[in-house]
């Protein structure tokens, strides 16, 4: 708890009880922020003229499975392009209800980043316009970057997808049917 930095004490003043903890790690300012009203907190950081953290650099998450409670932490890196200041914001998220408010209304760049966190960690972002898997395919089971997902786990085979509007060659269809018959509908 070092409030020596005037900027940090100003943030604490502005956000009030939303700030759970403030510390410095290797010279970086780190804030632990409560997830309730998260978007409002970020709005303050973004629009306040003295702070001006107008640039969202990165969103990611960490899974502290069996190490920490609450289990997840969503980590935001924001910075002020004008003042050259960085700030890291960590938001604890419990396993029982892995949801966080989406930041897409503030930064549209959050769209892809939040989709990636949902894809790999299974943390839902409320009010996200298009929360689909991004790096993995839709039929993927589980969330691979969770620590309880074994590294060598195999995924079930995915049946051929019917895509609306695509041209399907009848001959290839027949081939698939024959294959299905010979395998006893295993695929």
């Amino acid at each position, binding site marked *: 708890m070092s409030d020596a930095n005037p900027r940090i004490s100003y943030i604490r003043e502005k956000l009030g009880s939303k700030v759970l903890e403030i510390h410095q*790690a*290797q010279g*970086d300012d*780190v804030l632990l922020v409560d997830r309730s009203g998260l978007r409002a907190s970020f709005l303050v950081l973004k629009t306040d003229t003295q702070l001006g953290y*107008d*640039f*969202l*650099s*990165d969103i*990611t998450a*960490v*899974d502290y499975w069996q*190490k920490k409670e609450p289990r997840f932490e969503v*980590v935001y*890196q924001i910075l002020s*392009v004008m003042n*050259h200041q*960085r700030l*890291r914001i960590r938001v604890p998220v419990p396993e029982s209800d892995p949801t966080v408010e989406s930041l897409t209304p503030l*930064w*549209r*760049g*959050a*769209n*892809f*980043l939040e989709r*990636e966190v949902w894809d*790999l960690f299974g943390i839902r972002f409320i009010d996200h316009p298009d929360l689909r*898997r*991004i*790096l*993995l*395919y839709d039929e993927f089971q589980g969330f*691979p*970057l969770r620590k309880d997902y074994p*590294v060598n786990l195999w995924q079930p085979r995915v049946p051929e997808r019917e895509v609306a*509007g*695509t041209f399907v060659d009848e001959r290839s269809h027949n081939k698939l049917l024959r294959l299905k018959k010979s395998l006893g509908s295993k695929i």
Partner: protein
Amino acid sequence: MKAENQDLPLETMDLQMGPSHPATHGTIKFNLKLDGEKVLDCDVEVGYLHRGFDKSCEQATWTQVIPYTDRLNYASPLINNVGYALAVEKLIGVETPPRCQYIRVIVSELSRIFDHLTCCGMSCSELGAITVGFYMIEARELIMRIMENLTGARLTVTYVRIGGLKHDLVHDFAEQVAQAFKTIRKLLTDCDHLLSRNRIFIDRMSNVGVISQETALNYSLTGPILRATGVNYDVRKAFPYLVYDQMDFAVPLGGKGDNYDRFVCRMQEIEQSMRIVEQALEKLPVGPVWIDDPRFVLPEKEKVYNSIEGLMHHFKIIMEGIHVPAGETYLAVEGGNGELGFYLVSDGGGRPYRIRVRPPCFIAMGAFHEMIKGYMVADIVPTFGMINMIGGECDR
């Protein structure tokens, strides 16, 4: 004639471009909604090259991650190496000797030149300027030879280590660089003559893929794409790392934020990078390239083969990995395509608990629909080319 036009179908057409389209070098798919040739909407599908970089890193020791970072942005592997090593060193709390820092600057800048030449050369040849493409590939080859002489590999270099470098520069490095730069400058002047007043090239690039300053900031864009809109944000200047604060270089800025500005920014950055390399080679101090700390540095081979302590020391570092104190850190370097950040979490063991890479071109792909909306299908080629999406980094 008029009556016929009214009978034309008005519905939009869906077109899937990619994943293996000649223009989408790297595997990526665009689901386009078209009105004739005009792009109404574009949904970008990434992830075809996803190989679980983060998960693989959690299985490896801190040192074993370095080869994985080579495969992120394989057009500038040395910048990835440097960024990762700097992040781990920040977490440990050590600083490498000056000579090591200078060499890291040199190799980073050589990589940046390589990255920009790849991007510009490929884009030009896609637009029909095959000659320029070949000239740039020739220039790139010269850089690649220097890297090969230095690191022993052309692409998967793995040159930087945590706390130092694999080895010092080769003895005639400065001469090699001077010679290569002379040829590269000549080649780039030729390219400039071929392109900068070329009607076809300017028509394809200028006023295409325009993105405004506010939109670029809102979409978290960095690197040449952001600087082409006129925002002066370069990690080397904003958050100086290594010895960049002692170097004299300019940050080229654009104004319109179109493809031509991006191209010009990249071409000017090549010149600035060459200036940095020349300055660094001039100032290069004498001294060790490794930190003096046996906790992180492998012992000399002579000790390993001739003494039990040396052998144990070697064995422990290789098998257990170096011990990085528990904590978390974020460090960003200026990669070829923008801010390349590493977010590390350590639990105090020899293996990373979590490694996250902030991939600049993944984030740029998130804004692609904004850049291409309202333009033609053919404009996708230069716009996508100037983003310089590298599958290894985008999909990890």
